């Protein structure tokens, strides 16, 4: 596997160039002021391109020698983490449509099962926690939870 910095560096380089091309269509220019609204984003775009080139050069110079220091990629673990993340996303999406209490009572125990909580006490403990959070936000802070 190639050095990660090379791949990330190229992606950021592409992003930097994309930013530079996007600015004219996204930001109107104002002629009246000394430094217009486009200047700072342009500066960021240029900085991003410069930094990504430095990162690329660093990555190429180091070659594969640095790989020992990096954290090992374990595909299984990463997939598990992504599955966890997607479950959280699904929880948030469904909460928007089905309401806070219902989705919380379904998804939080699901997350706990996913993460391997065995003791029943914790599942029972979850009920008052959800209710307290609901009470604090909905009634005390007047947040209209879905």
């Amino acid at each position: 596997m190639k050095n990660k910095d090379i791949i990330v560096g190229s992606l950021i380089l592409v992003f930097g160039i994309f930013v530079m091309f996007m600015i004219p269509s996204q930001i109107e220019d104002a002629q009246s002021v000394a430094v217009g609204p486009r200047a700072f984003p342009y500066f960021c775009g240029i900085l991003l391109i410069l930094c990504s080139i430095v990162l690329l050069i660093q990555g190429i110079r180091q070659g594969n020698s640095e790989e020992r220091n990096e954290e090992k990629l374990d595909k299984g673990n990463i997939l598990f983490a992504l599955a966890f993340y997607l479950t959280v996303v699904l929880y948030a999406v469904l909460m928007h449509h089905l309401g806070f209490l219902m989705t919380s009572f379904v998804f939080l125990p699901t997350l706990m099962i996913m993460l391997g909580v065995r003791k029943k006490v914790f599942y029972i403990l979850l009920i008052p926690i959800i209710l307290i959070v609901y009470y604090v936000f909905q009634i005390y802070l007047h947040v209209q939870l879905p």
Partner: protein
Amino acid sequence: MLSNIVNGFVNLLSISNFIFIFIGMMIGIVFGALPGLTATMAVALFTPITFGMDPVVGILMLLSMYCGATYGGSITAILIKTPGTPASAATALDGYALTQQGHGGKALEMALFASTIGGIFSALMLLFIAPLMARIATSFGPPEFFALALFGLTIISSISGDHVVKGLIMGTIGMLISCIGLDRITGVPRLTFNHRYLVGGLQLIPVLIGLFAISELVRKVEKRDFAVSDVAEFSKESLTPKEMLESFVTIIKSSIIGTIIGAIPGTGAAIASFLSYGEAKRVSKRPEEFGKGSLDGIAASEAGNNGVTGATLIPLLTLGIPGDAVTAILLGSLMIQGMIPGPSLFAQHGKTVYTIMVGLIAVNIFMYIEGKFLIRLFIKITKVPMNFMIPVIVLLCITGAYAVNNAYFDVVVMLTFGLVGYVFSRLGFPVTPMLLAIILGPTAEESMRQSLIISNGNASIFFTRPICLAFILISCISIFLPLIRRVLSKKKES
């Protein structure tokens, strides 16, 4: 000034202040004690709860979490040799050794005693130095603010560790993100992609909950480290007055080191703790005991890291410069309360600011009381497994992000930044620079453009005003210092 302090003290005396300091402290100590949960996460997660509160109550609650978490790290450091926060790493050396010798109770007491003295010392320094700084800073105009924000941004270089380029990339992306929304000078929409939610810009709180909570949780899930360590048994053992006296010089010295380090943006509690520990060892009559169970070592490390807590607020409150991730979030929390940190804060919100500064002393006293009497409870809580805590924190993240504006879009923002934070930190990119840039970017841009409007486009305005020039020079030093340090250390090695 004295009358302000007295007024602050009088304002502090209300039941609700004390109740929320108490609750904040409990949450803080728990977050500090649980390995993997940090002060940063606690403050980010609970900021939304403070929206509806009176500014004094809300900010004091968050400060209690900050101080509590800094102290709480020592509990697990001493009992299971896993520092709850990086700042307690030095405590783990001697603390765990003492636990094994059967003196865990003594070690915990010393950590608490030293943390409290360090925290109170730092709070006092804040109370006396901040108003003076603010008075100097009231003469600042846009060029000075630009130089200050620039200096704040250069901290990215020192907090990025070995990856200055990666830190810079994160900072730049952060600055781009801060451009989203209406341009503050001309009112032109920028980078909004014609999306109506983006016109107002991104809300800070969802962004930082995503960056500092969700991404951390996903990382934890990936590592699958949910195991609960066995907490060593310890006997309740009090410090003798002689032991307190013996370490007192160390504690005061470490508090001073912590305060100085804390007042310099871009440093932080971990550095203060290690410096204090090193200094205590250097002057100690029994340096051979360090690392093998020295009470002095614990005193130094803990007074050092809690000595930072008040001092970091000096640049934050007077100049609006956050020194690290926690203070950057506190800055956001202050802004939401309508208090924009910076020189004008003391003039506009003097009463509130003084109450908060006096309150910080009370926070530390609460820390001592809770640490002394509720320690058994905290130790029990550290046995709660992470795989139960993670879903609970997810719940707090989502409701917290939602609470900012009652808007579902903020939840989307939070989840997006959670993924961004996870992917970048997984690739070795530090996340804090992005937060600093999102906060300081707009100040830097706005004040630079205002200055150039004042000077009709002449850039010499930045170099002819002494204070401004001084800060620009300090910024240059701050950028190159880590590079110089690295070159020097490489020379040493070879």
